[in-house]
């Protein structure tokens, strides 16, 4: 069985509204990816795996994409796993190459959130809650994360200021990212004073609502040598799952699904001590609290001690996290976000990031759907 490499990545800028159709965004991201390769033409991509989230206006949108980029008549399909769709598409692409069914796979994700007013966008995302139970009582997704945060404040004594520090780090990292949506330096006070969404989460604790697209091209390691001088190897990957309804879980302070995904990815990659063995990470900060909880579930620090690790995640710390700005800073076009996270680590390991961690050789990507209902962890290396 061949090892799998990422040979190219591309992403549009992420923004509140980009006057482009979804397929035009994907084409733009794909053109960037093709800029970085030699000896590969579009018709050598044998399989396309796609990811988007909101089905409200156009269903089967992937069929427009595959046609538009000239992929027809080759194999293509969409992978759906909530906010983890993009990473699950990546997982599928990895499996296709590993299993020998495909040689070169394109993973493409996109979202056009600007088609909906903010209220409607939140509602469409909230329909990923059980509509007969949690959605019916008026919950939006933020409510689930807020209840997890309240529980952590109760059990671990965490404060809103602690959560805000992560939002500040990520948003300020985004200022170095020309593709990032967030353009203003902020402080902890700005976060604390921002508008309440679901106590204790304010609008600046939450990720952005964005348009954008991102792509990755994967191939076998053998084929990768013909395509690029600088491939990045997928060393480990894992998916873990949990219940859809938060109330059905035995544990709401953390994400058991993340621990399952990390254990699998670490075993494949031979990682014993993630803080020692990794140089950087992108964590799915749909809310700053998710990043905090995830430090623990990824084994960076013991359960309940996440706050102690925040300072280590700055550039220059022991394990920088969300150099791109993450979902709070770069932006969050749902179907594209996990793919952009992987792209950031791809660029980091090639020394090409706009917010480079010196000498990064191994990085982690964490993506997350539902309120931790589906979690994907990948380890990338040189």
């Amino acid at each position, binding site marked *: 069985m061949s090892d799998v490499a990422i040979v190219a990545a591309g992403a549009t800028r992420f923004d509140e509204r980009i006057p482009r159709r979804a397929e035009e965004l994907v084409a733009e991201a794909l053109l960037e990816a093709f800029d970085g390769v030699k000896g590969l033409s579009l018709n050598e991509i044998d399989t396309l795996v796609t990811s988007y989230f909101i089905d409200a206006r156009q269903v089967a949108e992937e069929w427009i994409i595959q046609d538009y980029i000239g992929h027809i008549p080759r194999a293509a399909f969409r992978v759906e796993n909530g906010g983890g769709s993009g990473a699950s598409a990546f997982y599928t692409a990895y499996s296709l190459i590993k299993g020998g069914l495909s040689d070169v796979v394109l993973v493409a994700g996109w979202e056009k959130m600007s088609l909906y007013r903010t209220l409607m966008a939140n509602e469409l995302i909230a329909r990923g809650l059980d509509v*007969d*139970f949690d*959605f019916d*009582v008026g919950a939006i997704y933020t409510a689930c994360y807020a*209840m997890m945060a309240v*529980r952590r404040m109760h059990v671990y004594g965490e404060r809103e200021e602690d959560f805000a520090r992560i939002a500040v780090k990520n948003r300020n990292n985004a200022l170095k990212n020309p593709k990032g949506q967030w353009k203003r330096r902020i402080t902890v006070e700005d976060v604390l004073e921002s508008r309440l969404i679901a106590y204790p989460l304010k609008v600046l604790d939450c990720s952005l609502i964005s348009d954008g697209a991102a792509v990755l091209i994967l191939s076998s390691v053998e084929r990768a040598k013909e395509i690029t001088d600088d491939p990045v190897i997928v060393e480990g990957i894992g998916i873990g799952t949990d219940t859809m309804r938060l*109330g059905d879980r035995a544990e*709401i302070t953390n994400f058991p699904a993340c621990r399952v995904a990390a254990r699998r990815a670490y075993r494949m990659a031979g990682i014993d001590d993630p803080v020692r063995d990794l140089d950087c990470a992108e964590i799915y900060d749909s809310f700053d609290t998710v990043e905090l909880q995830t430090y623990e579930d990824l084994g960076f620090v013991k359960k309940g001690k996440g706050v102690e690790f925040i300072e280590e995640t700055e550039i220059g710390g022991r394990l920088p996290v969300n150099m791109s700005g993450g979902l709070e800073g770069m932006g969050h076009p749902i179907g594209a976000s996990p793919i952009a996270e992987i792209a950031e680590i791809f660029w980091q390991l090639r020394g090409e990031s706009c917010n480079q961690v010196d000498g990064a050789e191994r990085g982690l990507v964490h993506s997350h759907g539902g309120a931790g209902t589906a979690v994907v962890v990948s380890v990338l290396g040189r």
Partner: protein
Amino acid sequence: MGFLLEYRDDWGMIRPFFEGLSEGRLYGTRCPLCEKIYCPPRAHCPSTGCNLSQTEWVELEPKGVLESYTILGLSTQGHIDELPLILGLVRVNGCSTCLMMRVEAERDELSCGARVEVRFREDAKRMRDLYAVLIG
């Protein structure tokens, strides 16, 4: 541009739960093998070893514990007028799971672990027609 999406409810095998609401009764389901009680109810038990065995209906005393809560500054279309809205996770006594429901309380009285009673609005039909109040 837009369109109106209407759909029909279908409670399937957990219809007795929703029928109970209109009578002011709270039902859960109990697995005869592992004895876990589910509320929200499930017609089949997913626990390891139970192999999706069919559960049985049990009436629950409408009292429990507030495991966590939040105060919403934003909600979905049908609930915007009710903001700020308090939601909580209520573990009805004896249950393995929690119901997410409205909480009617003063903000500074809320705390994780508080004891609550579940109440029903008149002619309750859906989860939104349930709410919890704090009890001593």
